[in-house]
């Protein structure tokens, strides 16, 4: 063993550095909360809340996607399906027991997490591409299920009545915004904790070399299953407030291609190796789209996302975070 004194000092230094690293994102989030609370109130229009909600929803979705896609390298194309499981769990709860939203969200997360576990159990033993293909088909089958399920509105859709306002929070849209903000903070904290924990490092090891990881004692299948379930659960939670946000849901909006594409494009453009990448991607691309939807057509704006994504994965596979790192390395 090395000298105890020296190592104690090193550990102490590390601890304080770690504390600083934890405080930084928390401070960032405090600023975000402040902006949403005061900034949006200052703008005061409903559209401001709508835009903020959509961007925050994408922060959750792309952060969730990245737990499996970025850390473990398994591409999930079914984000819309996991999201929709959350949406329809919420619809079912609304039509039956009418629990408050805060109680519905964990239920949605559990339902979507179980779905992830099931699909993962069947396909995660095989090559990663098979998992991806299975998720592609998963969206279709979930869509089919909902279309044929009259109780949740079938293909015609379902209306959800929401209160105009809610105690303490004011207008309901403002309340939804705050719920989504809290969920996005929770998601980012979870993603960050995963990344810094042995769970995340195990995922990183198996992403690099699954056999070598197993020989180092990493239970690859279990970790992948856990990541799939966790990632799916967060997506499901993101879907739960959606019916109240739009007040009318049909399969076309719940399984929207916009969700599937953005959820993959945002982490890839932001950078998949750290928790901050998906956040940057979601905020940047999400805001851009909010502006573009008003100024240009929505179809064209989706086309832009697609083209941006292809350009990034071809030319800058490590995303914006990777570009920044490269520039920093060159400077030093």
């Amino acid at each position, binding site marked *: 063993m090395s000298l105890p004194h020296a190592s104690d000092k090193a550990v102490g230094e590390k601890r304080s550095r770690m504390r600083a690293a934890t405080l930084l994102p928390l401070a960032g989030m405090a600023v975000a909360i402040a902006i949403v609370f005061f900034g949006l109130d200052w703008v005061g229009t409903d559209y401001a809340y709508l835009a903020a909600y959509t961007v925050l929803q994408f922060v959750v979705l792309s952060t969730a996607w990245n737990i499996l896609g970025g850390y473990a390298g398994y591409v999930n194309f079914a984000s819309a399906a996991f999201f929709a499981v959350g949406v329809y769990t919420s619809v079912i709860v609304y039509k039956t027991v009418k629990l408050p939203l805060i109680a519905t969200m964990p239920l949605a997360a559990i339902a979507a997490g179980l779905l992830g576990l099931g*699909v993962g159990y069947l396909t995660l033993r095989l090559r990663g591409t*098979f998992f*991806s*293909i299975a998720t*592609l*088909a998963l969206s279709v*089958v979930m869509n089919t299920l909902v*279309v044929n399920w009259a109780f949740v509105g079938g293909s015609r859709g379902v209306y959800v009545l929401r209160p105009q306002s809610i105690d303490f929070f004011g207008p309901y849209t403002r309340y939804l915004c705050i719920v989504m903000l809290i969920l996005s903070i929770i998601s980012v904290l979870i993603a960050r904790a995963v990344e810094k924990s042995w769970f995340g490092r195990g995922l990183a090891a198996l992403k690099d070399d699954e056999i070598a990881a197993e020989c180092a004692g990493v239970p690859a299948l279990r970790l992948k299953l856990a990541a799939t379930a966790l990632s799916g659960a967060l997506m499901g939670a993101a879907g739960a407030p959606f019916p109240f946000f739009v007040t009318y849901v049909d399969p076309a909006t719940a399984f929207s291609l916009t969700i599937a594409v953005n959820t993959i494009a945002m982490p890839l453009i932001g950078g998949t190796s750290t928790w901050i990448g998906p956040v940057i991607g979601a905020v940047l691309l999400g805001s851009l789209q909010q502006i573009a939807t008003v100024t240009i057509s929505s179809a*064209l704006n989706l086309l832009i996302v697609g083209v941006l994504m292809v350009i990034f994965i071809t030319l800058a*596979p490590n995303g914006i975070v990777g570009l920044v790192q490269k520039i920093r390395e060159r400077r030093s």
Partner: protein
Amino acid sequence: MVNWDLLSNALVSGVLLGGFYCAVAVGITIAFGMLDIVNIAHPAFIMMGAFIAYFFNTSYGVDPLLACIVAAPFAYFGGRLMYRLYYLAFERHGEESLQGLAFFFGLLFIIEVGLLLIFGVDYRFVEARYIGPSIQLGFVSIPWRLLLPTIVGLAMVGAVALFNAKTFTGRAILAVSQDPGALRLVGGNPVHIKEVAFGISIATAIVAGALLIIIQPVEPSIGRDFIGRVFAICVLGGMTSLPGTVIAAMLLGIAETLTTTYLGPSWSPAISFGILLLTLGVRPAGILGR
């Protein structure tokens, strides 16, 4: 009491649908099964074919199938170009799995939205002499609209099988993903071989598009319904086997028409997913996996 009339009609149209699915899936059997390229944008190219047929049919009155057969060589070279790009950007660095998948997903999406911007969201259809009339065999009626795609689909698989069995390039296509280095050692260039094969794969998608729009009216987003189908057929058929592809396509066709007949058309998209998941979970090698 079984309604034989209904059942036999369902079985016949299932087989006919299966023949069309051969055309849809043969390109994926080449790209995914033989070349190991997970081209999830394949259905988007099928939609492209459908709209090429639509455009030339409505604007110039050209037969939809003819339009796509003429377009196929262009698609072949387009496909070669696309593989070049894919190779240079991903495969060469061994980064094809995550990034390659996202690349094709992006392509799928760009094509779909592009078609949407050009042609809109309405269902489009074509006109041709064979759309409408049927052959009546006892109580089974066979519409030409379904028979022609079946014949063309089976012919396409036959042509690819013949090409692979009889030509040097074809045999190299079968070998290339098993050991690219060994292919070099017998004098073949794996990149060139994959380029040619991918070109063929895209060309088949364009022709399949014409068959699709002959069978039914189309709009850009229905392409996605075919993703599950093409991969289910490819995996169930044993990935590399063309006879396997035909059998799997027929099975899926029959399963879907039976579902449509007895449960209603809205359930049929889920069939392919069920087959896919079951195959992956139970026997990933498929029916005729070597």
